[in-house]
């Protein structure tokens, strides 16, 4: 479909005024729910994501238990009202795939051997969607897991890069995602740089891929700083002298 929209102008300015390396605004708050063991509310551009963690707790059904370590169940779900055209409640194939890749990313950093036969349940709810929800979800999940006191080797951070009208940029917005040429979401362990999540669709030359990859990694590190700040902010008052 030919689009009349100019996603990026001659000065490298994008529709919302960002340059190619700029992330959208991100706000993170840890520990926002009462029942859940750990939780995180995150706003990323127009995305609003809420994550709740329960665990470690007994994995049920019994036959799903792993005698050597905990299983990680991430469940990504979009609320019916989170998208332009109302979505029927319940998981669809896209949600289930995203749930799987996020579970696998988390399994790598959570110290699961400490909890044989247990489950760590991560519920990711997208309340308002605007491109990049899986990155927002994985990022918020990292904070929620730390908030729950789950032992981890690192707090995973995630960010995407892509290509719009021939230009490689970081963190695609809504129109950029709809009319762009490629999308590359990445999740990393910031401490080691290990890649935990990687998906790509669209069309990138090797050179474009390398540029997009670097942009996404850099984005992950920026996001990681915001995550850490949010966690410390929540708990700093716990240790403040009275």
């Amino acid at each position, binding site marked *: 479909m030919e689009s009349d929209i100019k996603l990026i102008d001659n000065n490298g300015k994008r529709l919302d005024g960002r340059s190619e390396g700029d992330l959208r605004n991100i706000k993170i708050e840890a520990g926002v729910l009462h029942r859940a063991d750990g939780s995180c509310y995150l706003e990323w551009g127009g995305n609003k994501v809420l994550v709740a963690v329960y665990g470690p707790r007994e994995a049920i059904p019994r036959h799903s238990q792993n005698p050597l370590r905990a299983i990680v169940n991430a469940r990504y779900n979009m609320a019916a009202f989170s998208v332009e055209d109302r979505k029927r409640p319940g998981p669809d194939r896209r949600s289930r795939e995203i749930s799987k890749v996020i579970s696998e990313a988390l399994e790598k950093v959570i110290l699961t051997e400490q*909890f044989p036969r247990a489950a760590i349940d991560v519920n990711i709810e997208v309340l308002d969607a605007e491109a990049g929800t899986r990155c927002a979800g994985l990022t918020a999940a990292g904070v929620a897991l730390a*908030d729950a006191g789950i032992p981890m080797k690192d707090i995973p951070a995630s960010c995407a890069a892509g290509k719009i009208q021939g230009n490689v940029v970081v963190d695609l917005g809504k129109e950029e995602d709809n009319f762009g040429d490629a999308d590359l979401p990445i999740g990393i362990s*910031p401490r080691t740089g290990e890649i935990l999540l990687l998906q790509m669709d669209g069309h990138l030359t090797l050179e474009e891929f390398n540029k997009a990859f670097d942009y996404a990694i850099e984005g992950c590190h920026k996001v990681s700083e915001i995550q850490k700040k949010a966690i410390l902010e929540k708990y700093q008052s716990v240790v403040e002298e009275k």
Partner: protein
Amino acid sequence: MQKEKRKIVIPSQILGDIKSKKSGRGTFVENGKIFSGILGIEMENDNYINVVPIKGRYDPSIGDFVIGIVEEALGSGWLVNINASSPALLHQNEVPWKVEFGDTERYLNHGDSIMAKVLSIDESKKLQITLNDRNLYKIKGGYITDVEPSRVPRIIGKKGSMLSLIKKYIRCRIFVGQNGRIWVDGDTDSIENVLQTIRIIEDESVTFGLTDRIEKMLKKDAKDVQ
């Protein structure tokens, strides 16, 4: 008393080097460096770097006194919730009564609360608890509340000092399980006072001067009542 600043650390934060320090609770080692594995407070003890968790499930140790809530009566015992990552097994041979196979419901059932002790933890973290000790029994009366297991030492106090303080000013019986469950008994006003006090200790547990503040508050409340 030296006032050290209590430092919050998060997973992946670097804490030291194994050349000069040792890796304790809540930490892990990679490439010769010691990292924090949890959100918690860094404490050094005898050259061990430990991270004390701020939140999290109860991590059982053999010999711990815990308050359990019976989930299910099985043929040869009971499944008991002790706030760990999976329920504990109380075998029919580990109770002071002579229980016949299949007759377990007569003694303990879903919803009963017990004062128990952690008996064993096997390699796959399967837990067994026991009631075979004169200090252990089925709980009757009172109220049970939950706190973060990491707050338990503060609520008990050094050598039980905080608990003694509470009992000095409020007529009650208190038992604090290592698993973060607390049982309180007394008249309803006393129970309410104890619960309030525990909430304050929980919220301010890592601050300094807490014991003095609590004593001041309890003294004042006791005076007001008179």
